[in-house]
């Protein structure tokens, strides 16, 4: 029982981190029809800048805010310089965002050095609770709470506010939104920045969880996020949450019971979904 609860918490925590990455990816894809291969780079930048800010100020709140701002600024630059010239051309988008991914992760090595950096857990969140026989690591619980909070906030924004309405309408039909007098390009930029900020937040939360940050982590998590987006359905926000939890849980249980298959299980999930339901478990509409 104790084991299962722990595996559950591990899986949920990993799932939430993947969700933060996948949420931006799926929104950007749904709205702008751009698959951002540089998203993992933004995630890694979030992780590094979070660690850097934490080392500088010793305050985890500032570290998180710093990482989010870094992500938003990088998102702004990415949208303006990288994505804008190639709207509508899929192959060029794929190629160019991948190129930017290389630049981002190499820039990390230039700025922070090529070695991996240790990340400390803030004292308030380190340690664990013991409830009976079950040991619950505080930080993991914290990640899960943040993940659900982000989901709740975004779900509220998407469903209840005007900007959310515009975004949802944009996912359905961009031209119509444009025709109704809304500057959809501006909305693209904001959504991209928010997506990048979410990725950076994921990175910043990831750092104390894994204990170290390294430049290649971006690509590793990006692959998981891609799997999640495919399983959850491109452009679907709740879909990406469910798929992320699914992938996180499958990963953590398989890593314990059948370690050799821990990555393969995600691939198998994706293959099954693609064969039987190529549009993903959820569709973006509605």
């Amino acid at each position, binding site marked *: 029982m104790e084991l299962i609860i722990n595996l559950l918490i591990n899986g949920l925590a990993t799932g939430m981190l993947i969700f933060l990455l996948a949420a931006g990816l799926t929104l950007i894809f749904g709205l702008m029809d751009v698959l951002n291969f540089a998203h993992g780079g933004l995630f890694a930048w979030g992780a590094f800048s979070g660690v850097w800010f934490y080392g500088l100020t010793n305050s985890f709140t500032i570290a998180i805010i710093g990482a989010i701002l870094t992500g938003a600024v990088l998102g702004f630059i990415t949208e303006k310089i990288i994505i804008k010239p190639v709207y509508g051309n899929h192959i*060029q988008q794929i190629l160019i965002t991948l190129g*930017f991914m290389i630049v981002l992760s190499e820039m990390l090595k230039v700025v922070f050095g090529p070695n991996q950096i240790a990340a400390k857990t803030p004292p308030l969140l380190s340690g664990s609770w013991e409830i009976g026989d079950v040991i619950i690591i505080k930080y993991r619980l914290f990640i899960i709470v943040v993940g659900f909070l982000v989901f709740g906030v975004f779900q509220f924004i998407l469903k209840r506010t005007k900007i959310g309405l515009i975004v949802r309408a944009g996912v359905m039909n961009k031209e119509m939104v444009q025709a109704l007098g809304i500057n959809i390009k501006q909305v693209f930029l904001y959504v991209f920045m928010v997506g990048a900020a979410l990725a950076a937040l994921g990175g910043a939360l990831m750092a104390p969880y894994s204990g170290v940050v390294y430049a290649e982590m971006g690509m590793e998590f990006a692959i998981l996020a891609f799997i999640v987006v*495919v399983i959850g359905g491109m452009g679907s926000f709740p879909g990406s949450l469910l798929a992320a939890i699914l992938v996180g849980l499958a990963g953590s249980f398989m890593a314990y019971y059948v370690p050799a298959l821990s990555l393969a299980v995600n691939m198998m999930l994706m293959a099954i979904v693609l064969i039987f339901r190529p549009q993903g478990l959820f569709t973006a509409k509605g």
Partner: protein
Amino acid sequence: MKNKFQVNNAILLVLVAALAVFPFVSDSRTWTILLTQIFIFSILAMSYDLLLGYTGIVSFGHAMFFGMGAYATAIMLNRLEPTLSVFFLSIAVGMVIAGVISFLIGLLTLRLKSHFFAMLTLAVSGLFLVLAEKWRTLTHGNDGFTFRAPEFFKDRMMFYLLVLACLVLVYFFLRRFVHSPLGRVLIAVRENEQRTKSLGFQTLHYKVIASVVAGVVASLAGSLYAISLRFVNTSVLTMDITLDALLMTIIGGVGTLIGPIIGAGVIELAQHYLSGLAKEHPIFERWIIFFGIIYILAVIFFPKGILGTIQYAFWKQKNKIPKVDVAAPSRKELTK
């Protein structure tokens, strides 16, 4: 037209002859090794261009076929005896494995749109990398292992000539391939898949064929690469190999076969010199950053690459069409 074709062929032959004579004239070991490396990556980049430039599919999993060839050769030469016949057998085995795997992956994934395909190939090749890292009894994981190359290749020159021969053969094979009716269909798929479909071509079949051929050729490059290092580890399966092929193809010129060869030359030489500059300034250790930037600029401003841009310039000069007044009716309309 025929004449121009012959001129081009003659130029190529002279170049190949010059390269073949090169190791006999110069005894620079560095250059022989560097050129061997360029040839191997040319083969890889050409196979990649078959997908990217001719069929218009972006695959991020090309390294896995390269790695399959490399591991097939390394493992067989290590486990069996290091003779020439085992070497050729291992190339064949690598090709068959790569062919079968690319066929299966292609069948499953090529139905999807470009985004999904790129993502899936990335994920599948990531899976192969993990597999190679975990299956230590076979691959020795990230540490890799050394093996003895056949006696015949002890002489670097022999190997150089073999690789050059492979390059020429692959070039002519691929040229024949892309100029065949099948290759024409691939180009049609690149230009407009919907229209090709409505003309009655089952485009999935053609795309699968392209990906199998590309996989098999990449596996050949991998086999040669393993021999050139006499060592293999999981780095042959990493994203870096795919990125190299991608950069070479884009910078050299997509949709041509000479382009990737030029790209391979440019990138390998630049890599050689830039990493040499690392002593001057540490930023050159991260030389790949320059490639990343050049690559992004190339995608935005020179999507045709070096060769494509030159070709286009020539084409424009040759077909200097006098400015036609758009409003005036054309001759065709007048004679109607």
